[in-house]
């Protein structure tokens, strides 16, 4: 895993990418159906996988037809390795429309056009700082690689992970093996605490001594991100959130994926989530 300090300029005026992205017709290595909605698609795109930093994304052309026309953004879920060799990457997908249906139905051997890595990654913290990861549903995706990097830095990691039901809490073993402490919630109470993932987060933030540094990372539905950013601000903790947007191109060409960020003036300013994000400081977004 390549480790570089993220750029601090938020306007992206000169260099747009951490690495020049590659576009490959990646072969589907495997497609594991986790449930009737969720799947993990393994793609033979080692060049992209080697370069990808936690929180970065790829633009995927699902199918080779005119419909769906545009690519879709997906966080890199896992970097797949065998005997020290990087084989490719996987995507965690939830079936919600025609594009994700095609990904759900993809077969090993199919080719899927994949452009990446793209966007601004998470900035990982090091011990003695702790990292609290907050995931809602498919928002788990960027945290596998982030947890790996944090573990390598010796950072204590806790994952707050909320889903609709127990059967939709995935890859718990993988996180446990990395030494990640799990705090689980489900909407129906079938596993962990019943209710929203922000409930235990708030409780723990309250109980936390202020002299201990905690960085909060969040990915999930926008209302959850807004709630996490607000909690972090209330308790004086920094946060980094990975936002999901409708993206036309993923590389800054179309200006469709904008998100409002706070400015010195009263009016928020729209920035492109593909270039300035998808990871933002929770405090900079005008929720």
């Amino acid at each position, binding site marked *: 895993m390549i480790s570089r300090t993220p750029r601090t300029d938020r306007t992206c*005026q*000169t*260099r*747009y*990418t951490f690495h*020049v*992205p590659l*576009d490959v017709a990646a072969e589907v290595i495997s497609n594991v159906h986790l449930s009737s909605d969720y799947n993990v698609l393994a793609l033979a795109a080692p060049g992209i996988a080697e370069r990808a930093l936690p929180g970065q994304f790829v633009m995927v*052309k699902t199918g080779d037809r*005119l*419909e*769906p*026309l*545009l*690519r879709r953004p997906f966080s890199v879920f896992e970097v797949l390795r065998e005997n020290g060799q990087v084989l490719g990457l996987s995507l965690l997908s939830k079936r919600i429309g025609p594009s994700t249906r095609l990904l759900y139905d993809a077969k090993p051997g199919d080719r899927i*056009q994949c*452009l990446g890595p793209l966007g601004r990654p998470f900035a990982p913290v090091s011990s003695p700082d702790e990292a609290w990861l907050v995931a809602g549903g498919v928002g788990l995706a960027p945290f596998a690689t982030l947890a790996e990097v944090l573990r390598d830095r010796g950072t204590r990691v806790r994952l707050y992970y909320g889903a609709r039901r127990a059967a939709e809490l995935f890859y718990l073993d993988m996180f446990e093996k990395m030494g990640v402490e799990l705090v689980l919630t489900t909407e129906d109470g079938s596993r962990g605490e019943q209710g929203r993932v922000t409930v235990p987060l708030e409780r723990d933030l309250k109980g936390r001594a202020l002299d201990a540094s905690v960085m909060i990372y969040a990915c999930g539905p926008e209302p959850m991100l807004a709630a996490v950013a607000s909690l972090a601000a209330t308790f004086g903790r920094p946060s980094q959130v990975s936002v999901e*947007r*409708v993206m*036309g*191109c993923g*590389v*800054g*060409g*179309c*200006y*469709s*994926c*904008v*998100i*409002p960020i706070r400015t010195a003036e009263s*009016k928020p*300013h*729209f920035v492109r989530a593909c*270039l300035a994000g998808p990871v933002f400081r929770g405090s900079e977004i005008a929720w």
Partner: protein
Amino acid sequence: MDLTVRIGTLTLKNPLIAASGCFGYGTEYADLIDLSTLGGVAVKGLFLAEREGHPPPRIVETPAGMLNAIGLQGIGVHRFIAEKMPELRARGAAVIVNICGTTLQEYVELARILSDVEGVAALELNISCPNIKEGGITFGCSLHGTADVVAAVRAVTHLPVIPKLTPNVTDVSAIARAAEDAGADAVSLVNTFLAMAIDVETRRPKLSNIVGGLSGPAIRPIAVRMVYECRQKIRIPIIGMGGIATAADALEFIIAGAAAVQVGTANFVDPLIWPKLLDGLRSYGQRHGVLAIRDLVGTVDTRAREKEWISS
């Protein structure tokens, strides 16, 4: 095959131009594509001042196409010159600056400012954006408005002047003719088709702006027809666009009468499309023994069809 194209005093390396609004300011693509290999780069439409554009959602996908209502978010001409032009010059891009105004005076001011900037190859006049209420399209929808903007800009610049026309009029070719008569060096067409998509579950428009512009392969046959019609009415070069995604699509426009073409939506789908399109043009040239791409312009053989019709 000789791929060079002449637009007024400007010679393009080849007929492939990145369409305005679909290629950022060009710099976004500089790490992905050698900008100097493109015939031209039409940058995102610029006003004098910065603009925020519309709130999201700004795009929605439709069958073989997409609607957009970005609202011309932009950094304004001064920041463009200071922050983007140096890199565009260094990368060897032929920069076509797309300018938008709310008043005639704003177009004139933009043209004056840009005429003195090293590396600006041409001015494309945005008189056709369907997504903003003020200015722009109010000029492009009338013969007088078009003629006024073109003549006013013509008077203050030595750069090639290329009005970009809207298809949302009764007769594009009449507008093209008005632009030619007013001194345009070329016309580019078409901008997007005003369109709408509704979420039936919520009964809400899918775009925050309610309506937006349709682009992509869905519009190509209409755009080809419009280029063909304009070719009958004007002598100045036409820069054709509308749903081009393959070299064959580009050739269709050229044969219908376009001297050059712009590619927009397809660049979103495949930002590395440019060398593929160029290869496609070259191999067509070889297969058909075409020595210069300009020899293909407007060579559609309609008489053949007419004869078939008569004899049947």
